[in-house]
């Protein structure tokens, strides 16, 4: 039902809303069926995974295989919470494990300010993971650190709207001393390269 809502948003403004298909890896086969519907037929732009199961869970494998087959990225939530992750909430090291099991997959790990300095190191050696800048406070220096650790091509902008203010999240990128070309990569070019080829 949530995916139908996202598809309706796409119908409203197809050049603005590029929906991703949310699936629950607790039900791998149903997830694959839903991906076939939403991505294969309805041309959603990617797959979203949240906190149903950690990324180390084998239930994600059929989903990642389908993502590779359909040439779409997977957006995987992650965080390192001092207060304690939810039972199915992935750590960055879980996402690195997932990426290493599926080296052909294009994975976007969400929430740079949630995975923090340690999380960047967890994924540094997984070239098929990009990190998005969404969520968390506008901590100074994090985007610069992400670029330094991962390279300028592995950081993409995210807003976490409506939980976070667009301008505050944009500030994380715009306020840096990074070259304009790098900012453009983060704000647009890198994400464009992750999207399916038919969308470019």
């Amino acid at each position, binding site marked *: 039902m949530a995916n139908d809502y996202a598809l309706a948003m796409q119908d409203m403004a197809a050049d603005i809303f590029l929906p991703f298909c949310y699936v629950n890896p607790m039900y791998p086969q149903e997830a694959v069926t839903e991906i076939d519907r939403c991505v294969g037929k309805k041309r959603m732009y990617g797959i979203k995974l949240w906190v149903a199961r950690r990324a180390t869970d084998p239930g994600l494998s059929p989903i990642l295989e389908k993502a590779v087959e359909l040439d779409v990225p997977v957006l995987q939530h992650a965080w390192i*919470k001092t*207060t304690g992750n939810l039972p199915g909430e992935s750590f960055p090291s879980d996402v690195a494990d997932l990426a290493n099991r599926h080296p052909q997959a294009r994975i976007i790990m969400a929430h740079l300010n949630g995975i923090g*300095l340690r999380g960047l190191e967890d994924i540094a050696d997984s070239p098929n993971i990009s990190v998005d800048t969404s969520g968390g406070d*506008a901590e100074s*220096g994090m985007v610069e650190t992400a670029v330094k650790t991962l390279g300028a091509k592995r950081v993409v902008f995210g807003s976490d709207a409506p939980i976070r*203010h667009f*301008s505050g999240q944009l500030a994380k990128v715009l*306020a840096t001393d990074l070259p304009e070309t790098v900012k453009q990569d983060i704000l647009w070019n890198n994400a464009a390269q992750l999207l399916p080829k038919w969308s470019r």
Partner: protein
Amino acid sequence: MIIDFCAFIGNWPTYPVSGDPEVVQDTLSNYGVSQILVSSLESAWCRNPHRCNDLVYRAAETLADIWPVPILDPTIATWKSALHQARTFVPELHPQKRVHLVRLLPTYSPYDLSQADELLKSLVEAKLGVIIQTRLEDPRRQHPLAQVPDLPAGEVAAVAEQYPALKVIIGGTRTGEIRNLQRQLMDQPNLYADISQVDGLDVIKVLVNDGLVDKLLFGSHIPIFTPHAAIARVVCDLDDGTPNAVATISKIFSGNAGRILD
């Protein structure tokens, strides 16, 4: 003109920040902030936070835009000396930059605000206001061996109610807490909130629509946060090019500060 009620200098132990006073001043100057009310970040983790106020006083002596907001801790036996220092501080080059406000960090000491009664009474006598900090860091992002819970903003509002002659600023609280205190903020003339840690889509517009425009004070939370975010939230939410919008923005950026810093 912009006045920043939530700015810090110094280092933070679990995350590298650019807390050099000159860097803080230069960064904020780029955004039009010309009056920076500054406390020492290092007070949070110093067992005697008063020792770190010297960094703030020195910065105020030499840097034109830095105004000192010393940290006071009522559980330090000699807190009255620190208060005396605050009351008598007059920078030689900028004599107008005397101390107007002190800041309390109750969750870092830690102490209950009920232990601050004598200090708060002294602030009333000294005609100094107080910023009571509810948060410096998102608890989810803290070092696991250095976890500090948020102070409920309602406890700060209770201080304002208990001491109606004391100007009280809720420091660094989140959107939901400010909205929950809408009635207290509107009813208590001495209570204000800085907006350094508010967030969410259209948050400033929401708070203004809640009737709180006269109670909001700009705060950047530099150097932990980039000040660009705090400035952008206000301007993007409120600036529609009309004179009314300019007036509203001016209230948050500096106008409301006049009732505290006079």
